Structure formats: C-alpha cells, structure tokens
C-alpha cells in the first residue's frame, strides 16, 4: 500500500476554494476602487451595503423576507450555472444558456396564461423548448463545425425577439408587461408547501428553492457516479479519443447541450412561475441571468455543490447592489463586480499552479 502524505495546499478542493476566495476578495476590492473613483465619500458605505444585502434591514423579520427574495432569484441562477457547468464539463461553453432561459420563460409564461396549464406541465414544455434550442447549437457544432459560442449568441437574440413577439399576445392592455400569473393563470403558480411561512410569509418562496439544490446534487451524481457522465466527460477531454473508443461523440455533444438547455429553461420556469416578476415584452436586452450563471459556475470551481454557494453569493451581491445610494452610484456596480470575478476566474489555473509549486517547494525543504 502506497500512502502518500500530501500537503494541505496540494489538495484540489482546498486549492479551488482558495482560488475562489481570492477571486471574490479581489473582485470586491477592485469594485471598491471604482466606487472610490466615482465618489470617495460614500464608497465604504456602498461596498458594505452590497456585501450585506438583506442584512441592511435592522428588523429581523423584514430581513428574513428579503433573504427569501434573494433565494427566489438564486434558484434560477443556480439552474443557469448548472447548465453552463454541465456543458463545460463536456468541453462546451454554453453561453446560449441566456437564450435557453429566455425561451423557457416565454414558453412557461405563455402556457400558463394562454392555456391555463398546471405548473408542472408548463415546466415540462419549457424544458422541451430549452432542450430544442440547445439541440440546435449542438447539431450546428457537431455536424457543421459552428462554434457553440457564436451560435449561442445568435440564438440568444433570436430567442429574445421571438419570445417578445409571442408574449405580446398575453400582455396587459395598458402596459408592456405580461398579465399577472397569480390572477390570470393560478394553476401555474408553483406550490410553496409551507416554505413561505419560514420567510415571514414571503409568498414567492416556493418548492423551486429546494428543487434547484436537489438538481445540483443530481447533476453531481450524474457527472461523477454514472457511466453516462463519464462518457460525456471523456468526450469533453478528447473528442477523437472518445470516438475511437466507440463513444458516439456527436450524439454526446448534442445531448449535453439539450440537457444544458433544459436546465436553463427550468430555471426560468422557477422564477417566472413564482409570480415574482412579469415579463416585459418591450425589453431590448437579453436577461442577465444566463450570463451571471457563467460567473456562478466558474466561481463554484465547476463543482455542482460549490456552485450552490457561488450562485447564492452572486445573487446576494446583485441584490445588494440594488440598495446602494442611488444619488451617488448605480446598481450596475454589482454587475461590474460579477464580471470582474469571471475575469479573475480565468486566472484560477495559474493560481493553482502557484499553490502546487509553493507546496512542493515547502515539501522539499522538510
């Protein structure tokens, strides 16, 4: 039996955790510097507000309610992050998650309002639509050699415009927003099973929150513990090797993006069928949820369990950004910090390399 004692720093989990923490701290620090440049007098307050989010409310119950709101938005973000993560494990960069999220939202909301379907059927239809959109990227990638990032971006915009066109049919007469699901599509509202009571009667907290966590665990099991997951990962590591060892590498690529699409679309269902927000049919930019999913996936060290915490953190600072003093700063400062974190995640490989080297050096001296 060979038992090697490895240094603390050489442990992969520790390395990932440390690297993510470095990204967060640096991201917040650079964000703070930007705040200082804009207006030095309120910068400390603003960055603390972003970090505190719901804790800015002194009343415990109100804070609890707003924690609920953060969780309501964390669920869809986590789903988008899982979509990105799942595809990335197979060597695909699913920037199309944003569009798959859009099409999921469109189909779910339309099915709820126009056809009065129950929530689970809306969710299934949305997932099918998301999977179909993912399949388009997958087909283009495997049979026509089209880069999935570029096809993903094109499909994001096509989805946005077509869903706006579809949802105009179920919008309120006097506003660009779709009708309220709580009034016009009651059957489609996600059940809360008493979870709302835990958050000071926040009616938007539904089964979506535990469901998203459950799916994260499921994704982990599929990727790490099944033959199917192993085949997909092998395809991601070396397409040709997978092909020569008898795996259907083209099919694997398509299936992966279909699963990614279904995950992102389910995320949209979780958000829009909670009734928290109505879709604005006049919106001219793709919702940021899919893009923030990229941040959460990488910040979570590309591990489904890590992604749960990373999604909460990203949503936490995004919500926190809404509370900064608007006479000095804008809420987009949170987007700035999230995108800085993605940028810094590009350096994770380098950081791990340095850590390993450092640990090896130390080990050699002893």
């Amino acid at each position, binding site marked *: 039996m060979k038992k090697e004692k490895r240094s603390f720093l050489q442990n992969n989990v520790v390395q990932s955790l440390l690297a993510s923490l470095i990204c967060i701290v640096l991201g917040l620090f650079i964000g703070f510097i930007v705040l200082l440049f804009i207006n030095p007098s309120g910068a400390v307050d603003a960055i603390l507000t972003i970090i505190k989010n719901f804790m800015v409310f002194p009343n415990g119950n109100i804070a609890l309610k707003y924690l609920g709101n953060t969780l309501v938005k964390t669920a869809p973000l986590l789903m988008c992050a899982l979509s990105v993560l799942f595809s990335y494990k197979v060597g695909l960069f699913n920037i199309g998650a944003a569009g798959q999220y859009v099409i999921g939202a469109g189909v779910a909301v339309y099915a709820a309002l126009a056809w009065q379907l129950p929530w689970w059927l809306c969710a299934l239809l949305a997932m099918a639509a998301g999977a179909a959109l993912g399949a388009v990227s997958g087909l283009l990638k495997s049979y026509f050699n089209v880069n999935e990032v570029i096809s993903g971006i094109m499909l994001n915009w096509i989805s946005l415009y*077509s869903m706006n066109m579809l949802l105009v049919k179920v919008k309120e007469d006097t506003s660009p927003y779709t009708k309220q699901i709580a009034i016009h599509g009651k059957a489609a509202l996600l059940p809360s099973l008493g979870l709302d009571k835990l958050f000071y009667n926040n009616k938007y907290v539904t089964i979506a929150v535990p469901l998203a966590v459950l799916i994260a665990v499921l994704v982990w099991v599929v990727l790490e513990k099944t033959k199917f997951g192993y085949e997909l990962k092998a395809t991601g590591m070396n397409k040709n090797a997978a092909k020569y060892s008898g795996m259907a590498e083209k099919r694997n690529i398509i299936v992966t993006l279909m699963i990614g699409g279904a995950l992102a679309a389910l995320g949209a269902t979780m958000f829009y069928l909670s009734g928290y927000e109505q879709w604005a049919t006049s919106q001219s930019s793709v919702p940021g949820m899919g893009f923030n999913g*990229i941040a959460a996936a990488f910040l979570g060290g590309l591990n489904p369990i890590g992604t749960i915490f990373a999604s909460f953190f990203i949503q936490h600072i995004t919500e926190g950004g809404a509370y900064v003093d608007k*006479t000095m700063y804008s809420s987009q400062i949170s987007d700035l910090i999230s995108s800085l974190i*993605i*940028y810094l995640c*590009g350096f994770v490989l380098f950081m791990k390399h340095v850590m390993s080297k450092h640990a090896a050096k130390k080990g050699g001296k002893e």
Partner: protein
Amino acid sequence: MTLLLQYTLLYASVLILVALGGCFSERSGVINLGLEGIMVMGALGGALTMKYMAGLPGIVIVLTTILISALFGLIYSLLLAVACINFKADQTIVGTALNLLGTALATVIVKAVNTAANPDDVSSNVQYIAAKKSLIVNIGGFEFNWFMLLAFVLLITAYVLLYKTRFGLRLMACGEHPQAADSVGINVYKMRYAGVMISGVLGGLGGIVYITAGVSEWKFENGVAGFGFLALAVMIFGQWKPLRIALAALLFGMFRALSNVYSGFDFLTALNIPSTVYNMMPYIISLLVLTFTSKNSKAPKAEGIPYDKGQR
C-alpha cells in the same frame, strides 16, 4: 434606395473594422471573443469625447473622436492580452468576461457622469447630437460619413500589412505554428500582443462607428447588442481574409440596414412583416451562413492554444 445604400455602407464599415480586428487577433493565435466589450469601451470613449467637444471645429472633433475611441479599445484589449498570453487563461472565459465587464463598466461610468452633472439623471444615455453633424457630409441626399472612408483606408492598410510586410507574415506564422516561428527567432508573445492590440484599436473604432450610425444618443445599458459577435461571423464567413471579410461585411451590413429603412420600401411594407422580424434578420442570416461555411473553415491552426515556450 440611397438611404439603404447609406446604412448598408455604414454598418458594413462597422463590421469591416471589427471583423478585421478579430482577424488580426486570431491570425496571431488568440481568439478574441471580447470584441463586443471592446466595442462598448471604444464607443464610450468616442461618445464622451463628442459630448464634450461639441462646438469645436469639425475636423478636430472627428480626429479626436477617432483617436480616443481607438485608445480606449487598445487599453481595454490589454486585459485580454495579459490574461491570455502571459497567464495562459482560457480565452473563452476571459473574452466573455470582457463583454460583460464592458457593458457594466460603461454603464457605471456613464451613470456616474450623468448623476454628477444632474442628481436627478440616473439614465445611462450619452447624447452627441451636436458633434455628430461634423461626421457627415451631405452629397445630394446621400449622407457621406467620414467613418466610411476610415474603414476603407484601414481595410487597404490591413491587407497590405498582413500580406505584404514582414510583420504581417510573422504574425500569421504565430497563429499557424508558433513553435516553428519561435525556432526562427520570432518573439511569439510580442507578436500575439501586437495582434490583440490591433484588434483593440479596430474594435474600439468599430464601436464608435456603430453607435453613431443610426442615432444621436446611446443607452449604454444595452451594450452593442451582439454586434461584436456578428463581426466574428463575418470574419469566419470571410475565411480570415481581409478582402473576403469586406464582401461579407457588405452582405451582413445590408441585412442590418434593412431593419432601419424597410418602411421606405413599398413592397416590403406591403408584406406586412413585423419590425421584430427585421431586427432578428442579421442573427438568422449569420446562423445560416455559418452553417454552410464553417465545415471547411480555414481557421488559423494554433488559435485558442496558449503558447508555452517550454512545450515543444
């Protein structure tokens, strides 16, 4: 008809500039998915310049705007260069981050500028209506824009630089086979820096041309609506060759122009197609075009792979 021609040439100019930027970067071996973000930063620099220089002589405005936009793009592209060349970061992640960061940063800056001037103004809009007049020369109904000339000159320059100079040939060698280039004494890192920085300059210029094309104020929250990626599609369709890129840009430019001017054509209005469909058109066309042209793609062989001197 003149209107369609005018907008086609304008949008084609944008696509030519940005796609050439992508071409230089990829020819040196670095995939630049951050062009979208670079465009936003270039647009920001140019728009602010135009906002504050209104009233000065036209030629000064035009030249300064060009200079500042190029400079903003150049500086911003260094973020990509450092991460991808020195730290061997994943080029897809960094490019995507730059796109998101570009829009967020520009929004934060513009909002800060607006609220500093007027505490009630929380919009992310920049107006440049006054200075925009100096960009345009009216020739019998056709509004000639100096940026069209700029794109044309830079197209010729890019062609000559890439194929007729020692620099260009060396640059392309680094994208095809960096080890071989290194073995004959070419500094691969330097060449790749040059490639990315040129893409920064061209991307930044493309950004200011784009936001001044149809309108005289810009809402920075919207970024540049996927135009950087359309330019990448143009580059792939153009097979990484400047002259082909120009032709592809004209085609794509026309479809983009249609969404601005379709209401001027009787037979198009008679078809009664909703305006949203025209908005979608460039994206649909580019997907179709990519489907039929990517199979035999002539992409530089070493693009996307970080160069490591120690590996042979």
